[in-house]
């Protein structure tokens, strides 16, 4: 038996499952991208640009949260985790695989959104290619980071993982803005653990609140790695507690 075939089969089912779980959300995002094209076609370039901006900004956040919500915590609360475990699945590997599948689903949706918005560059000429590049980096980076935060909260067994993630993002963004002007190593280290609003500004080409000590790429990599490591650590505890 090919293990690759097994994993591919599983992955495909999970990716399709993400889309089937949030049809309305995806419908709204894809429709909004089409509406932006419609406005551009009738000469309302400003409105088209505004809608495209919102699709990227709101889409990244909502996509990251909705796709990953309940990935572990739902199974823990309902007891379904017993069903996976009794079939010989090693739970940490199993959930990491689910996480990767859902990340792939997010990536594919982001690519779909970009493809739908690409007529705004050509033939409609409302956006520059660089605008689409900014949307792409924003969608991939922010949706990816937000989804890892939700995964970690879910792995910790938080029943309302998406609310926990939103609360963390809001509170740590406010804190990050408050300490943005503070200098010193400890503040730089603290900022590494807060939602990287400065790095997001830098990625989108809007300029940060201050000159960052670390590059945006490093900050995103560090944060994603830290949240995944935290999630894996918590998985061991939470699954043992619920089995």
């Amino acid at each position, binding site marked *: 038996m090919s293990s690759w075939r097994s994993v591919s089969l599983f992955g495909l089912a999970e990716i399709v499952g993400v889309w089937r779980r949030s049809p309305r959300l995806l419908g709204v995002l894809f429709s909004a991208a089409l509406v932006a094209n419609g406005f551009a076609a009738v000469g309302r370039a400003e409105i088209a640009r505004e809608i495209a901006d919102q699709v990227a900004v709101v889409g990244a956040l909502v996509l990251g949260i909705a796709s990953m919500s309940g990935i572990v915590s*739902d199974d823990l609360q309902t007891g379904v985790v017993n069903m996976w475990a009794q*079939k010989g699945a090693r739970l940490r*590997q199993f959930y990491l695989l689910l996480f990767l599948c859902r990340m792939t689903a997010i990536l594919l949706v982001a690519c779909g959104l970009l493809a739908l918005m690409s007529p705004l560059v050509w033939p409609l000429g409302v956006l520059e290619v660089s605008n689409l590049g900014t949307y792409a980096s924003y969608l991939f980076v922010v949706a990816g980071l937000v989804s890892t935060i939700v995964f970690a909260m879910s792995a910790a067994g938080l029943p309302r993982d998406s609310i926990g993630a939103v609360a963390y993002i809001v509170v740590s963004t406010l804190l990050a803005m408050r300490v943005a002007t503070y200098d010193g190593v400890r503040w730089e280290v603290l900022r590494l653990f807060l939602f990287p609003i400065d790095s997001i500004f830098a990625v989108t080409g809007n300029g940060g609140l201050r000159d960052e000590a670390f590059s945006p790429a490093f900050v995103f990599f560090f944060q994603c790695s830290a949240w995944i490591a935290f999630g894996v650590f918590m998985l061991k505890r939470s699954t043992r507690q619920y*089995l």
Partner: protein
Amino acid sequence: MDLLVRDVTVGIRDGRFQRALFQCSLRVEGPRTIALVGENGVGKTTFLRILAGFAAPLDGSITINGVTPSKFREGNALGLLPERLSLPESLSGYDFLRKVSLAGVVNGRVSPAAMEDSIADAAVRGGVDFPLTKRIATLSNGMRQRLSLAASMLPLPVLLLLDEPESGLDPVQRANLRTRIKTMEKDGTTVIVSSHDISGVCLTASELWLIHRERLTSIDISQCESLTDVMSRLPNEWRASL
């Protein structure tokens, strides 16, 4: 199948720590249907979790076919129907069975080709007589229970642990479940059914495991034809407690 319980001591935590079993030993060879009975809170569920390898005894050892329960579970030869299980409502019955089956596939325990056959077989064995395309949110409690039972039999296990499987079933479905359990024994599966209601399970079982006052005792009831027969084999103090 060879299940060996040797000098096992089990503790449960129900508000405060208490001992459920003390130095109990048992052996089961070959496919059997066993009714695990005892009053509420004596540790039936905890004992089943230990047999499934989800918890460890305080003392003593358990082996299934010569390996520990957790090793045995990794071989995908175990089925467990937990007492409290809420199925994911957004999925259809088929999607749920497929996902449970894929958990074994990911671990390399089931071939993808065998998966579809395994799902169809488990649905029949579990008594799923409604369309699997129906969403779980629209299923009744009895239908969900049968779907859960089917999921625990993916693929046909060597050891099947059923924790209060009759809850939520009407009398007809209970009778059907007992018939299916007997069929599984004939197919080579050892089934351990826990219940606090001895009358519900003893007619299905060939062996009775009683938990009472920290002791686990096995009684052969294969020759019993009625509940009265079964009760006559029990010591007086147990009869009163049941």
